[in-house]
């Protein structure tokens, strides 16, 4: 109801030939409840103003009354497509504070889960982005393969979407006996599928025309806006946390940090497609080398963090996730801040879409890969 007042105000401000259009909060192309107020001159975008908060749950406030074991579960509901990686970042922050040593088996399992999550997330993005641009088939292709990952997750973690598997000190349960075989089958299947994706979309001339040179973000702007993940790397910023500040076993596996220099929508697309292959590479190196041993470090039933401030970061499918815990020495955090990648990436939307045509907005938004619960938190 209050939002409507804002829309009317925006309408009044429009003068002359300006036209104000509201996209969302219930628009299929915003993929979630994001509300954009767009001011147009003819078909050219003058300004895009995001209105947030439709799915704000105040996760940071909730975490202040949850214990260090409990708060991790809430974070699966932030960026639900990177649930494992969110949990991972939080678990790492608690481990850093308690100086816990994670057993080697748990480290490898965590990286395997992270990379499977990244593939699943990029696949959903690929299908949805192509659908935004009018190609319907990729959506079905992407979900066909993503389903295989969901099945693997369901077997080991018991859930298909908001998985909770990582706990401070390791992982909750051991891998399902079928895990290795199923992942190997998936890799075999998926390797051919990426070529199919390339045939279907990457080389498609209509798709290239709609994305090349659209929504250009320069390197300086990407750093200034704090854009990370595929968005930052498509603008030539080296910002892969897995390479810059390696955690778990990322320094022991070989993979490339994908950097494109174009900064346009097509570059952002290429980064994610190429990252799929890198994730497969990481999984291939690890799947036969999961060490035996414990899956969890020994921890007390109630965790108490020492007084101080702790920060950990992880590379989610969308960029750098930071977890900042301020502890007063108790069993609950005094303050938690989640530095979500989508929030910073969204802040660049207005800047890069000004001067584009309204039709290009979907190409820009699609390749920013926004997940709204991650932005609103």
């Amino acid at each position, binding site marked *: 109801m*209050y*939002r409507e*007042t*804002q829309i009317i105000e925006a309408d009044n401000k429009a003068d002359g030939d300006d036209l104000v259009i509201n996209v969302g909060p219930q628009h299929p192309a915003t993929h979630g409840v994001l509300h954009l107020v767009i001011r147009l001159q003819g078909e050219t975008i003058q300004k895009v103003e995001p209105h*947030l*908060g439709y799915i*704000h749950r*105040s996760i*940071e*406030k909730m975490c202040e*009354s*949850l214990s260090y074991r409990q708060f991790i579960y809430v974070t699966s509901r932030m960026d639900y497509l990177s649930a494992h990686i969110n949990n991972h970042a939080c678990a790492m922050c608690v481990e*850093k504070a308690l100086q816990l040593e994670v057993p080697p088996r748990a480290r490898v399992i965590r990286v395997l889960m992270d990379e499977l999550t990244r593939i699943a997330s990029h696949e959903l993005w690929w299908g949805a982005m192509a659908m935004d641009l009018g190609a319907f088939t990729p959506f079905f292709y992407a979900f066909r393969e993503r389903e295989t990952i969901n099945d693997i997750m369901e077997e080991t973690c018991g859930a298909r979407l908001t998985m909770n598997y990582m706990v401070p000190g390791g992982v909750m349960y051991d891998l399902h006996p079928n895990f290795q075989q199923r992942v190997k089958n998936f890799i075999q299947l998926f390797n051919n599928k990426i070529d199919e994706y390339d045939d279907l979309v990457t080389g498609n001339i209509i798709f290239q025309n709609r994305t090349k040179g659209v929504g250009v973000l320069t390197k300086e*702007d990407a*750093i*200034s*806006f*704090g854009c*990370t993940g595929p968005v930052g790397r498509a603008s030539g*910023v*080296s*910002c892969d946390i897995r390479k*810059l500040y390696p955690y778990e076993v990322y320094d022991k596996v070989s993979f490339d940090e994908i950097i494109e220099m174009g900064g346009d929508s097509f570059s952002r697309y290429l980064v994610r497609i190429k990252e799929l292959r890198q994730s497969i590479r990481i999984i291939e190196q690890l799947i036969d080398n999961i060490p035996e041993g414990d899956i969890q470090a020994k921890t007390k039933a109630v965790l108490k963090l020492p007084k*101080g*401030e*702790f*920060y950990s970061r992880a590379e989610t499918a969308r960029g*750098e996730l*930071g977890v*900042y815990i*301020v502890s007063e020495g108790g069993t609950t955090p*005094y*303050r938690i*801040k989640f*530095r979500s990648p989508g*929030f*910073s990436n*969204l*802040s*660049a939307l207005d*800047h890069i879409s000004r001067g584009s045509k309204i039709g290009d907005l979907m190409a820009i938004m699609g390749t920013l890969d926004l997940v709204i619960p991650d932005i*609103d938190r």
Partner: protein
Amino acid sequence: MTNNELKDHITQGQPSAVFDETGEWLNVQVEAGEWKAFANWLRHDALQMDYLFCLTCIDWPQTKHLMMVYHFTSTTFRHNVVIKVKLDRNNAEIETVSDIWRTAEFHEREVYDLFGVRFLHHPDLRRLILTDDFEGHPLKKDFEDPVNMIKL
């Protein structure tokens, strides 16, 4: 750059800075009045802190202050530094840095929304997440909402 080298540089740029090395990164506390000039120095001078990766606030009701926390990295030199600015809890005002780091525009709006810190000369200081007629600032420790808050 090591913490000692960072300290040397920062002392030159801001002689009144107070250091704290207990955490993972070097913590530097500056006065609110000196913040804007210091921010400009951080970005453009020797340290080249071009990437503001986290901007937030912490409420400390016992000592009646709000603490602004800025996390910086330099993408050229790869050193990190945490800047803290103490604000009066009842009259929290600080200069905006959204003209230096553009990501601050959204982050400062979020802090304004949830903590009530007013950012002076901010281009568009409105509530970002909550509705315009929302009363109070939920991340403050004394915020009470008898209807929507469930105490565990």
